[in-house]
């Protein structure tokens, strides 16, 4: 009996959030079978890819014990830069590469201020968030860049193309997940991310390049936010000057639901994948079963709380 209990507990510890996700899927599809159509499943993956990419980068940051509030603003600014580059006649593949490097550079600015100048991550990224939002308004004059994908074949494919019957943003998300999974689980850099988040002083004494590690996670976060900005801009075929506002909160929620500790040092990128899916399934599912918007907010808050409480229990 105790053996089985322990076994159940073991399964639960490993797959607690997966169970929450499966429960959500079962309940929602019982309430409306349209939830499990191929179109809708692909629709969910297409929609979660944006929050997903940001959350993957955010996982690295949070694992070091930091936070990146500027990701939504980086998404908005990168999307606008992409829109303006395309409308100015830049070939789309070149524009995409420039924008990803641009996002990485914005992340490097955060990383420099946090690791080298040794400022609090919260306040640095709060400040850069405000700046990046302002710069987006300056370069766009507050006007959206419209018709971005009209003459850009690659970008049009990013938004509406399919590979092996799967939406392209979904494929980008899973490739990013796979690469970042390898990076965090199988490389020296990945181990130093955990070490810095666990105990920075100990990490430094064991000759881990803490400054470099802490700076690099923001570079990754910035690049992923820019990639998400490219996908959102192509999806809407337009760059909106206020795009991305508040996206950081969904990303942080996904990471935390996935079991990564805000204190750093503990968590798994696989958990983030599940966290992203829980938020995506919830957003979509509540629309599919027709829950009114006021109740939607309450339910979303509740699910986040329940997931975090369950995770707290299982990790004790």
């Amino acid at each position, binding site marked *: 009996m105790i053996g089985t209990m322990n076994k159940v507990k073991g399964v639960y510890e490993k797959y607690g959030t997966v169970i929450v996700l499966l429960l959500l899927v079962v309940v929602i599809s019982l309430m409306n079978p*349209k939830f499990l159509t191929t179109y809708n499943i692909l*629709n969910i993956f297409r929609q979660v890819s944006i929050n997903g990419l940001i959350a993957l980068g955010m996982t690295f940051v949070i694992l070091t014990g930091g936070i990146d509030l500027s990701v939504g603003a980086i998404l908005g600014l990168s999307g606008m830069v992409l829109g303006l580059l395309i409308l100015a006649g830049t070939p789309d593949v070149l524009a995409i590469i420039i924008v990803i490097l641009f996002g990485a550079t914005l992340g490097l600015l955060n990383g420099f201020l946090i690791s080298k100048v040794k400022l609090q991550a919260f306040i640095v990224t709060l400040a850069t968030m405000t700046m990046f939002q302002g710069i987006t308004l300056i370069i766009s004059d507050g006007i959206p860049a419209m018709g971005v994908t009209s003459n850009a074949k690659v970008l049009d494919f990013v938004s509406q193309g399919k590979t092996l019957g799967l939406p392209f943003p979904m494929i980008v998300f899973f490739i990013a997940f796979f690469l970042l999974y390898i990076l965090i689980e199988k490389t020296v850099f990945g181990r130093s991310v955990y070490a810095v988040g666990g105990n920075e002083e100990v990490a430094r004494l064991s000759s881990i390049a803490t400054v470099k590690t802490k700076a690099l996670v923001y570079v990754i976060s910035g690049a992923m936010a820019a990639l998400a900005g490219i996908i959102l801009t192509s*999806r809407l075929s337009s760059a909106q000057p206020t795009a991305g506002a508040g996206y950081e909160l969904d990303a942080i929620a996904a990471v935390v639901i996935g079991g990564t500790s805000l204190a750093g040092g503990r968590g798994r990128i696989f958990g983030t994948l599940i966290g992203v899916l829980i938020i995506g399934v919830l957003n*979509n599912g509540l629309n599919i079963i027709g829950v009114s918007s006021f109740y939607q907010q309450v339910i979303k808050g509740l699910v986040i709380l329940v997931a975090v409480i369950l995770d707290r229990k299982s990790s004790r």
Partner: protein
Amino acid sequence: MKKVRFLFLALLMLFLVACGDEDSTDDSTSTSEDKKLALLMADLGNPFFHVLRDAVVEQAESLGYEVIIYDGQNDASKQPSQVEDALQKGVSAIVINPGDEDSTANALKEAIAQNIPVVTVDRKVNVDGILSYLVTDNTKGGVLSGEWLANKLPDGGNVIHIEGVMGTAPQRERGGGFLSVIDPAKNPESKFKILDTVVGDFSMAPAEAAMSDLLAKHDDIDAVFAQNDTMAVGVARAIETAGRDKDGIIIIGFDGAQEAYDLIKDGKMSVTAVQDFDFIGKEAVNFVDAYLKDGKKPESEVLVDVYMSDSK
């Protein structure tokens, strides 16, 4: 460490000087005899409001006013200090597009006490002594949208309703007007059915996402009413992405924004309820000008007409 700090301080000062420069050159081009008019905008991040700004500036400059523009950046709490700043600069009139109905009430009392005419546009401020309040007749726009749809589909149909930011006046009034015609619960003669109501927050990405979800849920959508054009563009994009453009879903927007006309031209959208910001902006300036010249007072509240349009 000290060097870094110094560097940042130097950069900041340099930046302030660079940004400040523009203003001082602006000042030097205007003569000191110019009457000044302050224009306070709630959010210049929304491109549609640029029409309002441009109308005010054009009309005011033609009447010999220098216009000082403030942007509230979608944060109503910024506007009271902007009103104070304008009074400090000695403006003779204020045209304000308030971010909400209360934040600027106290600051505007001071202006009213100095007998400075204040006209609010698009939203009112709860304070006595405002010269006039000009606003789009949002309820009528909603009614017209509903009537347009009833005319287009005399036998009724299935409708999706995409709402703006919940609790705001345009959301309540546009939705209320539309539902008073289309919703069978409010109009027993309606042959329509409201399939679903979702919130798009007056912006494109949430509207696109919600519409993608609803396309998965329903295969019998006849029409979508989006409470502004930005959301209507998102809806059209979702339909296109889902490969459902052959369904012939009717999309109704609200505002009369350029991007709506572009989509209507391409056959991806049907119609938009136009609010005449150009007229509102010019009329607001005319009101303060007439008051300053002859002490003439306009109506305390002016509802500006809305009309349906499918081309600019």
